């Protein structure tokens, strides 16, 4: 399944440019409002190889996502978003057991800069980042196949024919 079309390619280029600007700015001026941790996400204790990154600020995003050696699936999430309550646990379930792929959850209430940088206009939104570059994305609650397909591609697995 190939997701990239001309439109999304334009999107990537624009985002990558915007992103580097915004991230650079934010590195120069540390953001004032740090996310608080009152909404701690329950993390399953069994069979966790890989803890989900709960992004608290821009610096953390740069360190753990943009500069990560591993590809990262970034899930823009909000507690008030019903579809997010289905998607985020699903992503955790699928990605946490994997050693070669990370999941980062960005609460859109606490990370206005990241929301702006990545032009997130609706949640849930998912972007896939490899070597600091956006390589894929989807918005909304999509088919399970599309999610697993993305994860398989990002984790370097070959997609099994359904």
């Amino acid at each position, binding site marked *: 399944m190939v997701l990239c079309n001309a439109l999304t390619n334009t999107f990537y280029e624009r985002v990558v440019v915007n992103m580097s600007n915004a991230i650079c700015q934010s590195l120069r001026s540390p953001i004032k409002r740090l996310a608080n941790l009152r909404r701690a996400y329950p993390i399953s204790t069994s069979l966790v190889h890989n803890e989900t990154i709960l992004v608290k600020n821009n610096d953390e995003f740069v360190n753990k996502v943009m500069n990560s050696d591993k590809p990262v699936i970034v899930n823009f999430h909000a*507690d008030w*978003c019903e579809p997010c309550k289905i998607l985020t646990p699903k992503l955790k379930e699928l990605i946490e057991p994997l050693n070669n792929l990370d999941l980062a959850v960005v609460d859109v209430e606490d990370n206005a800069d990241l*929301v702006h940088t990545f032009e997130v206009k609706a949640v849930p939104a998912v972007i896939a980042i490899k070597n600091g570059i956006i390589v894929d994305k989807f918005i909304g609650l999509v088919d399970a196949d599309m999610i697993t397909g993305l994860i398989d591609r990002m984790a370097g697995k070959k997609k099994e024919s359904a």
Partner: protein
Amino acid sequence: MAPIDGNFDYDLAVIGGGSGGLACAKEAVNLGAKVAVFDYVTPSPQGTKWGLGGTCVNVGCIPKKLMHQAALLGESIHEAVSYGWEVPRHQDIKINWGSLTESVQNHIKSVNWVTRVDLRDKKIEYINGLGEFKDAHTIIATMKNGSKKELTAKNIVIAVGGRPQYPAIPGAMEYCISSDDIFSLSHPPGKTLVVGAGYIGLECAGFLNSMGYPATVLVRSVPLRGFDQQMARMVTNEMEERGVKFQHKCVPISVEKLESGQLKARWLNTELQEQHEDVFDTVLLATGRYALTKTLNLDAAGVTCITSNGKIAAETEQTNVPNIYAVGDVLEGRPELTPVAIHAGRLLARRMFAAATQQMDYENVATTVFTPLEYGCVGLSEETATAKYGADNLEIYHAYYKPTEFFIPQRNIKNCYLKAVALREAPQKILGLHFVGPVAGEVIQGFAAAIKCGITMEQLMNTVGIHPTVAEEFTRLNITKRSGKDPNPASCCS
């Protein structure tokens, strides 16, 4: 201090991030202006607060419509049984207030977020602080942490809106809630006393009653004062038939908290000079709204407002200080409606920044009261038309009607009624349209456009209806009140 050389920080500062203020700010930015918006919500006496977006989004139209919809859905479950749906134990079906408020609040939070994202996207500076005037071009905002933020602007728009009024009776502030609190109330409201029979009071009483929370309404003068009174009676008749209790000509005296935690309310029937009391779980005050101008320090800018209600009289949205304007609920003598504020705000921005000349037309604005049976109207009430033109110069067309979908569940059709207020002289220009029934808002919106175009009774009668709908009833109007003919539909299958 405001600069003397005319170099301001912003082209426009808007005080109040509600429907009117935001519409004005966004339009101004689209026209190239540099804009800042101040928005701050002072918690209600019960401690309720909310985010960016103003009354409509947070504690008005939006949550109200959602709760109305919740009430309608509950009724539909019972009707579904008549239509053949097998609903297990439908007699036991009840609302989960916690789930309802959570869903409603989640929707509101999503709108708050989208609004914030949109402002940032449009490069509108959003300042979450309580703004006040320092002078005609300078605003100081007090931020949440107490710090101050000061900026200057060439133009300033006051769009602070209003908040519920609390009657000066013992217990009002301590124990009562208002429309500010009901949509996020942490516990089911239970048996509720609604003080006030304006549209807010009636809508709240209506959805609470439909959800199974017994509601009593204290009516000081008449229900829906300012609306067509014949239509208002249809609305309240329907509510009464569904179990809402009305105490007419009654004003509250006191509310006290009992040991049980319940509230004992006393009221006075002003006609009979009799006192009554009853015990409720919730007392909801809906006795009007005041404009939020007190904290603005208008004097510093030289802006005058009406002392009694804090409202600003501004014919063309321009106050007595030329660079200061006002839009929305803060305006004196204008309909307190979101779309009115949005339209006025947008037009104002075009006049300020695009040399436009179009003024807001406040006439013939349609509205709908979302009571269990809805009431939609546009234009003049029969009373207003009579006062303006004289009964002899008017023709009133009216009809009772039977919505097709009401037959099977045998729903009450007694209050399904509509009328057209028109000039008597041909071609009988229509002055007002009134409709009580299902989806009244959807029905009346299109007709509002027709009224704007100057529709006549001749044209309305020559319009072919869509069958079977409730809106087509307008095209079928043919009985005048003057004729004395029976406005009831034929008994069956018409």
